[in-house]
């Protein structure tokens, strides 16, 4: 117990505690701060850029997580079938997850480039557009572009984890359902989904956490631009704390992320891990 406790204390409790404390100070890089109470949070609440970053983060997390779940589940069910070259396809699906994030972000930076985009180039060649698409220059287009990059990178994690879950479901349950005359939708609704729910809960909790705290994709592709429309809490925290030297304010932004992360965890815990339902009973 002691080594584990020590590790948790040194690498988890202390940094989290220090970050939280810094958020209540006006510490600057290279200069110790003084206690300012809720001053940082009061400022951040009134700061348009922070509020925009909060909106961006929630929007980014919600849209990317929902799509990653839908596509990941669909992919997992496809891979769970007896396809030819099944192992090969399963390995290929993992590729986006294996590539270092910074590298895939660079690739997307080129794909979305206002002057050199391969997508725009192809569409131009096909005669479908008459000028390059400004993927990262228009705020909403930029938001959807970075979400697409996140989805591409995040699907393998969801798909492979759910595939592992699917493989734990006994085929005899499907056979029994088939004998009872269940339709494919009913088999999914009353066999697959209840048995997969614990895995979904874990996978989606992690997926939401990873997405909410995303940094690298945004930092490489847009640096939060254009007009701060893709700034997430994590990138804004870095910009204010490290580039700008306001450690206290940056820490406050980072700390402000914690309640949202806790809410996501609690939602998945109480909302999805309903054991009675999974076992065919009724939830009270």
């Amino acid at each position, binding site marked *: 117990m002691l080594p584990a406790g020590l590790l948790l204390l040194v690498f988890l409790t202390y940094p989290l505690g220090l970050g939280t404390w810094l958020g209540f100070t006006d510490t600057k*890089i*290279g200069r110790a701060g003084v206690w300012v109470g809720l001053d940082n949070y009061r400022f951040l609440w009134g700061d348009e850029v922070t509020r925009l970053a909060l909106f961006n983060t929630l929007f980014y997390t919600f849209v990317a997580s929902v799509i990653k779940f839908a596509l990941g589940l669909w992919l997992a069910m496809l891979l769970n079938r007896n396809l030819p070259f099944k192992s090969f396809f399963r390995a290929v699906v993992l590729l986006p997850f294996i590539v270092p994030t910074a590298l895939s972000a660079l690739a997307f930076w080129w794909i979305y*480039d206002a*002057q050199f985009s391969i997508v725009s180039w192809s569409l131009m060649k096909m005669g479908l557009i008459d000028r390059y698409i400004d993927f990262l220059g228009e705020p909403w287009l930029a938001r959807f572009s970075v979400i697409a990059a996140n989805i591409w990178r995040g699907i393998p994690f969801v798909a492979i984890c759910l595939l592992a879950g699917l493989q734990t479901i006994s085929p005899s349950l499907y056979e029994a359902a088939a004998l009872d005359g269940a339709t494919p939708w009913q088999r999914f609704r009353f066999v697959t989904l209840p048995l997969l729910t614990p895995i979904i809960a874990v996978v989606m909790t992690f997926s939401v956490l990873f997405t909410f705290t995303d940094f690298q994709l945004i930092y490489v592709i847009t640096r939060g631009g*254009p007009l701060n429309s893709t700034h997430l809490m994590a990138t804004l925290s870095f910009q204010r704390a490290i*580039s700008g*030297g*306001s450690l206290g304010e940056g820490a406050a932004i980072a700390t402000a992320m914690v309640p949202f992360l806790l809410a996501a965890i609690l939602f998945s815990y109480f909302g999805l891990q309903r054991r009675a339902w999974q076992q065919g009973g009724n939830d009270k």
Partner: protein
Amino acid sequence: MSKFSRRDFLRTTAGAAAAGTVGVGGALWTPEAYAQGKWVPEKGAKLRVLRWKRFVQGDEDMWLANTKKFAEKYKVDVRVDSEGWEDVRPKAAVAANVGSGPDIIISTFEDAHQYPDKLTDVTDVCNYLGGKYGGWYDVCKEYCTEKGKWVAVPMGCAGNAMVYRESAMKAAGFETFPKDLPGLLKLCEGLKAKGMPAGFALGNATGDGNVWTHWLVWAHGGRMVDAKNNVVINSPETIAALEYAKQLYATFVPGTLSWLDPNNNKAFLDGQIGLTCNGISVYYAAKTSSDAKVKAMAADIGHANMPVGPAGKPTELNLFFPMMLFKYSKYPNAAKAYLAYMMEKEQYEPWQKASIGYVTQPLKAYEKNPIWTEDPKHTPYRDAMKIMLPNGYAGDMGYASAATMADFIMVNMVAEAASGSKTPKEAAERAQKRAERYYKV
């Protein structure tokens, strides 16, 4: 309690310099008084230097060659590490915070004002170099002195200028590059009409975005703060600058709102734009390219200093490089000897030549370096240090000016107004509110 500010120091040193010219202080300022070798490295000294990663290969090659020469001559082991320039600033801050790290860090802008009490006084080195090489440009003193002491040795600055295609400029009806703002707008309109539009970064581009937007606002007489550090960005001058930016933006190549630092270089070298604002690295890349088409472009590239606006004087912002020696260094004498050695003519001028003047000198004597005249395309960069304004103009440098720049307040304001996402008045009001946070109203 009276505070000895940098301005007091400038006045004092100006007085001392004036005294020197009439012979009163001559003995104090003669180069002979500061013989090289004044700083005897500590026995067994080892130095770690962290610097920004080169923008042009010649810079790094010659810097390392000069370092090797120093190491051999003084028997000091010197290790030079390079990091992307935006990463050096946080690392320097961490080093200052924890009291451990590289002995010397070559960083950017006003870092020396962020933690001056963590830095070794290098007044002796700067006085020696200044006395020997014609003195420092005034902006160096703004960046590197604190309470009358030099807390960093200026390395120079990455000068910025208008980089254009001469053929495109002529096709747009201009024989020479315009020197005023109406002329620049007319040129940009002409370039767009000829299919070679201008392109200036308006994304969160730390270097290129900040450089040209600060110039633009300053050129109109706008500024983030006044001499007393009151935030005054929401002013008629700024709004005039933003109205101008709107007109200018209409002539840009599409996509500049998302441009980061590398985008304008790529677009220019690909022949998609006819004008941008950049260091000499675009020309260097063309000149040294292995691609015959790109290499041929070099002859068609022209450079010009940024036009002067209603402010009536040059208002350029350039990327300044302070060399900071930290107090925690165990070998301050070796470090001082290194700094002085690297700035001596025998090392500095060949280094500038190797990078075709990527770094403009902080010492006036190096204006005569042949690199500035052997190719007329280099010349506009020669005066970068002489004509630039410091970050945080017209107030003091320090935490607030650094944070204001890092938060892209100026860039965002210009981008919002130029793109029409906010009116110039709204954009200026928002910038005012954001900046006031850092300047603590």
